[in-house]
């Protein structure tokens, strides 16, 4: 049974207002910006975002008023600096107040790992002297029953939906992703359901020829969407490079709320879909394409 649908349909059907949505879980690369844009176009509200770094994806969603809560280790613009919408929301409540659950990258990874394992909690020694646990509010301090030392217990995070972008997937949702995984696999396995944005939709036989590349099995996946270039301006290994200047332009353009609104109107709400977004990028998009170097042969 094919799970292939349009991005519009996938987001409309599987991301109701109020959903806990994990995205951008590979950290800097493979961020499904196309899905973030579609969430903005569909004016989703009260989302609870989950993701370690997210580069500017969370910032856009916050600025567009889609977000009630953020579980993150870092929200900013990796090569340019601070995230202006996140700042406005936290400092001035513009466009609305949001709740932040601070994490470090490790506690984010452990939370999603606990979710993926179905584990009640995982004990760690990170952050014992940090203020993050207090700000997060979901961890618990405890004493190890082995040596009496202080530990921090991390409970599971279970996204309602995890959105991942990958190089290729079959129509069942079996998804091949290569390059760094960050916390993507944990986020996908922990989630109640998964939306896969595939740069390429391939026959099942392509996936089955190399099952070690599968980051997420079809049994977890509700929708597969064919979206070439879904990660721009972030990179996708072997397909296209990061568009650094795009991040820097966004940083300059969104210093003020009005500038952010102009930027969104131009790049997100002003284009009907991701194909139109790529067409608008034009030769700038083409110039980012990479073909990479082939992996050494492996036979199964």
């Amino acid at each position, binding site marked *: 049974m094919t799970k292939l649908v349009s991005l519009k349909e996938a987001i409309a059907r599987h991301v109701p207002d109020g959903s806990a949505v994990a995205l951008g879980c590979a950290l*800097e690369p493979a961020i499904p910006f196309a899905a973030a844009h579609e969430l903005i176009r569909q004016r989703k509200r009260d989302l609870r975002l989950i993701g370690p770094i997210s580069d500017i994806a969370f910032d856009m969603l916050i600025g567009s008023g889609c977000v009630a809560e953020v579980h993150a280790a870092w929200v900013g613009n990796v090569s340019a600096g601070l995230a202006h919408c996140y700042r406005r929301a936290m400092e001035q409540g513009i466009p609305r107040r949001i709740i932040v659950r601070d994490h470090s990258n490790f506690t984010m990874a452990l939370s999603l790992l606990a979710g993926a394992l179905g584990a009640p909690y995982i004990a760690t*020694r990170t952050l014992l002297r940090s203020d*993050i646990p207090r700000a997060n509010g979901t961890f618990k301090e405890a004493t190890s029953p082995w040596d009496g030392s202080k530990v921090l217990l991390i409970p599971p995070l279970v996204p309602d939906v995890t959105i991942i972008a990958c190089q290729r997937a079959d129509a069942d949702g079996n998804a091949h992703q290569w390059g760094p995984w960050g916390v993507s696999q944990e986020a996908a396995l922990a989630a109640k359901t998964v939306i896969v944005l595939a740069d390429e939709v391939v026959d099942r036989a392509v996936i089955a020829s190399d099952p070690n590349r599968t980051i997420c099995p079809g049994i977890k996946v509700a929708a597969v969407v064919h979206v070439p270039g879904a990660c721009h301006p972030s990179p996708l290994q072997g397909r296209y490079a990061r568009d650094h200047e795009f991040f820097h332009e966004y940083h300059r353009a969104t210093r003020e709320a009005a500038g952010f609104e102009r930027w969104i109107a131009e790049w997100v709400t002003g284009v009907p879909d991701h194909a139109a977004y790529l067409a608008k990028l034009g030769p700038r998009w083409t110039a980012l394409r990479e073909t*990479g170097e082939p992996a050494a042969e492996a036979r199964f």
Partner: protein
Amino acid sequence: MDVSPGELMVAQAAREIADRDVVFVGMRLPLIAFVVAKRTHAPNAIGLFELGVVRDAPAPELLYTMGDTPNVRGAVWCARTVDLMGLLQQGAVDAGFIGGAEMDRHGNLNTTAIGADRAHPTVQLPGSGGGADIASLAKRLIVIMPHDKRRLRDKVDFITSPGDHVSVLITTLGVFRFVDGEAVLASYHPRSSVQVCAEHTGWPLRVAPNVSETASPSSEVRRIIRGYDPDGFWTRRGD
């Protein structure tokens, strides 16, 4: 000799990496410090990038983020964040680099928010990333940040990254070592001085008895830095 503060900090940071060290690299200046160390005195150092990349050779071109495609191409391991954080928690990581918005004299760093109330900050900063983990779990922590009275504060509003393992603080003006958990000025950069450092530090400056001028980068090191970051995107920012 035209050496930018960024270049001075990179050169000093590179000196903090020993050969065979396993290092959590991080972005911006530390990335270039890793390149310098690898190409000079630490050819066997291994770089860990928290999104899941392990490299025994630096990427051949300038990186803007650790997830740039050239940083993955030629890596020896492409893993999951949790794998590398696991090595960190095991105690298998020798050193890590982090930056900070503010630091107190005990090395505690704030990268979360300025202001007393976390829910209503005066300035919302990006957050920890992996910084708090590296600070909690690496054997030694190398901190790089701008030298400013408002940044080197007597007390920080929020401890993102605890200072227990800080071994060195490299600023735009000097280098601090930590003695009994407290920052002591070990050297001041060329064109800086003990006096200048004191004026720009938010706590009463402690100065090492053998304080001296920070060694300038050799011409070889300068050549490596400028070859790697020819436009000075990271090393000549804000100059």
